[in-house]
């Protein structure tokens, strides 16, 4: 059974064969001022890397991708390409778009397997930068700063670097070895990643501010907040982020085999939780959402994927209380039907309870996926201004209210906009690095 579960978590899509890649690469028109580049948050010169696959210049192709996007191997797998590069491909208007994500994976897989050195550390410039968080934004900032010659230290609370890639994105989309390789690329450039180091516990914000010339805050987001209903303490109630994280850490358990699972929320994390539950052997998995299909924040392809996995969707349904047995285990979920009322501040219609519509469904587990909490105390530890836990920044410079502290990734993304894309976080990390470097360079140029 365990080996079957493990197979369930193996990467779903297979790599293009050489012939497939060449055929697809040759189909690329090599547009001038190509819209796919504009659509990519990291501006990968896509036609260039594709032509390099076609010409057999695999190192050049991988370099082109990784130069623009330090986590280009992850993004090849997790980017919503139909909303980005592939959605912008001009061939949408004539035949079918180029499979840019698959080609990007083909090129970066080559780099992973051939283990070539893609980038070198820059000549030391004597400047020290601390980065809080080793996720997509932090790693990208570190990679660029190290190439510029900065001495970079990343403080990471988890046991492994990689952030969302290592802990938050389901294995069957993004296997750990991909993220491990990207982290290794950054470590090879001399970046010191201090894992198991929580800022505010193992080292204080003041110490960091005192010891480093610049600081980048890239801590992402925290746990799923409480639903605020009875029964959340029961055994069998999970935080979706933690739930997915356990599947990424290799220890797949058989607890859910044959069980009924309810997932609360309908964002991409909810889908992750639901599809993981299916792969852990759950017999029935339902996503409960207090609004409708139209308002759900999950990507369309994630929604399709969930439906293919046999996941049920119960729209206009909100949890009222989780019911446990004498042993303190989940046995049911009391729900209430909703209806959409007037639009709220965010422009979306607010769900309202339909009185007397309560009903109970029998479930063995509940997965909560209603967003994520913010690291407010950490942000305040650095003395930074924020709005509901989203750090306030100057969007052109990524600069916070403290001019030596920059912030990027999920920690600045926010308030009603759902979650940031991995690829956007990577670009923000690059941007923060460029601003820090620019600031160092400018006075010397004047001098």
């Amino acid at each position: 059974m365990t080996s079957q579960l493990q197979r369930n978590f193996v990467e779903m899509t297979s790599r293009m064969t050489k012939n497939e890649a060449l055929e697809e690469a040759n189909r690329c028109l090599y547009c001038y001022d190509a819209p796919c580049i504009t659509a990519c948050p990291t501006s990968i010169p896509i036609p260039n890397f594709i032509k390099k696959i076609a010409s057999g210049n695999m190192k050049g192709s991988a370099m082109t991708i990784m130069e623009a996007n330090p986590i280009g191997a992850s993004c090849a797998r997790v980017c919503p390409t139909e909303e980005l590069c592939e959605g912008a491909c001009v061939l949408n208007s004539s035949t079918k778009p180029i499979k840019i994500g698959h080609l990007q994976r083909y090129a970066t897989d080559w780099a992973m397997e051939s283990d070539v050195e893609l980038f070198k550390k820059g000549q030391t410039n004597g400047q020290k930068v601390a980065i809080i968080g080793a996720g997509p934004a932090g790693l990208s900032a570190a990679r660029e700063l190290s190439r510029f010659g900065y001495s970079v230290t990343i403080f990471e609370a988890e046991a492994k670097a990689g952030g969302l890639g290592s802990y938050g994105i389901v294995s069957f989309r993004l296997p750990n070895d991909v993220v491990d390789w990207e982290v290794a690329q950054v470590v090879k450039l001399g970046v010191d990643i201090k894992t198991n180091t929580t800022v505010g516990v193992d080292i204080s914000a003041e110490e960091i501010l005192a010891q480093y010339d610049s600081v980048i805050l890239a801590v992402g987001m925290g746990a799923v907040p409480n639903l605020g209903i009875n029964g959340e303490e029961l055994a069998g109630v999970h935080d979706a982020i933690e739930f997915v994280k356990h599947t990424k850490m290799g220890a797949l358990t058989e607890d859910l085999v044959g069980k009924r699972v309810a997932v609360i929320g309908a964002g991409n994390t909810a889908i992750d939780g639901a599809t993981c539950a299916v792969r852990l052997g759950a017999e029935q998995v339902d996503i409960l959402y207090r609004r409708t299909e139209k308002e759900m924040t999950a990507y369309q392809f994630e929604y399709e994927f969930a439906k293919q996995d046999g996941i049920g969707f119960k729209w206009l349904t909100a949890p009222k209380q989780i019911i446990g047995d004498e042993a303190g285990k989940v046995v049911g979920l009391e729900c209430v039907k909703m209806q959409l009322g007037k639009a709220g501040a965010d422009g979306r219609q607010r769900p309202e309870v339909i009185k007397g519509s309560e009903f109970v469904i029998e479930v063995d587990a509940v997965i909560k996926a209603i967003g994520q909490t913010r690291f407010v105390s950490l942000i305040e530890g650095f003395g930074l201004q924020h709005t509901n836990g989203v750090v306030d920044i100057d969007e052109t410079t990524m600069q916070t209210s403290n001019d030596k502290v920059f912030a990027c990734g999920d920690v600045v993304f926010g308030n009603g906009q759902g979650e940031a894309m991995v690829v956007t976080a990577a670009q923000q990390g690059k941007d923060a690095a460029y601003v820090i470097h620019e600031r160092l360079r400018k006075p010397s140029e004047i001098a």
Partner: protein
Amino acid sequence: MADLRIDLAGIKSPNPFWLASAPPTNSGYQVQRAFEAGWGGAVWKTLGEPILNVSSRFAAVSFNGQRVAGFNNIELITDRPLEVNLQEIIETKKKFPNHAIIASLMVEPQQEKWHEIVKKVEAVGVDGLELNFGCPHGMAERGMGAASGQVPELVEKQTHWVKEVARTPVIVKLTPNITDITMTAEAAVRGGADAVSMINTINSLAGVDLDSWNTVPHVGGKGSHGGYCGPAVKPIALNMVAECARNTFVNVPISGIGGISNWQDAAEFMLMGATGVQVCTAAMHHGFSIVEDMIDGLNNYLDEKGIASVMDLVGQSVQRYSNWGDLDLNYKVVAEINNDVCINCNKCHIACEDTSHQCIDLYTESGRPMLKVREQDCVGCNLCSIVCPVDGAISMVERKSTIAPMTWNERQSLISSFAR
């Protein structure tokens, strides 16, 4: 149903599609399979003194993933005994009496050798002879093939020797490895040739292996030049056919060869003066069955055009092929972009901007990217319409000139008349 039968200098075949003298016509087994598939004729792989072949022999050029854009070989003429070939020709002719079998021949440039082989092959009932003065590799080092074909006097003399004894029509196959093919075509006609065929293969080296640094192909680490054919050579062959067709001294039928892969290519060669065509590379790439669409497509084309016989196509475009000095300097076309069809790849813009006349502007109209040709700067070069990946997005449209047509030759003679 149009009449696809052709008569090339007295050689009749049920359709214009012959297999060229090459590996596909090496044996009776192959030629019979070809006739069963529908090929109208076959030029039997060149007969002569049997030779020895090497391994490997072929190479091809891929372009952007398209295999066999061009094909290169260093195989020589038949390596099977003459008697075996002759026996198989008899058997094949018996099974397919209405199909054309032409014997390709190559011997040393001696009168008695030509007399001897011509008599032997005509005795088995071939419909015609094709003199191989074109093979560029191997045999040429022994004074045969292209070595003969590059010297007009040798072409004329050997053709003459053949004609001294031949009773069937004689086709002289010409090499393109020469500055002006009409020189050797005229020599063949002077020697008495009933027809000419062209082109044989072009001297070529297919490539160099970037890992081993060996030639492609190589024989135990060594290579030598081969003969190039396939789709890539079609424009070269078509020009040579056309130049011969419009040359009044080359007043014999032409059998067109060179990169013909489908009925459209065949129709183009026939419009440019070929009475029939010979095919090799396309069959080597896909097998004999490709002739089915060649026949079917040509038939439908002729029906659609209301043409009763394929012979009515022959030479229809020849009078449109001329000297540059006879082209109208005042004729003008310009590019026109249909933004409703355009997919905005901007290839036309960058091609024009970087490599032509900088007359395609990018702009946006209510947020939508658009392209426009500045007509006053457009020279009508066609480049934009060539690189455009979408049919109908760019048209080259005629702009009526306000001045009367005038060619360069007319202009020069007018100027010189003023000087007088």
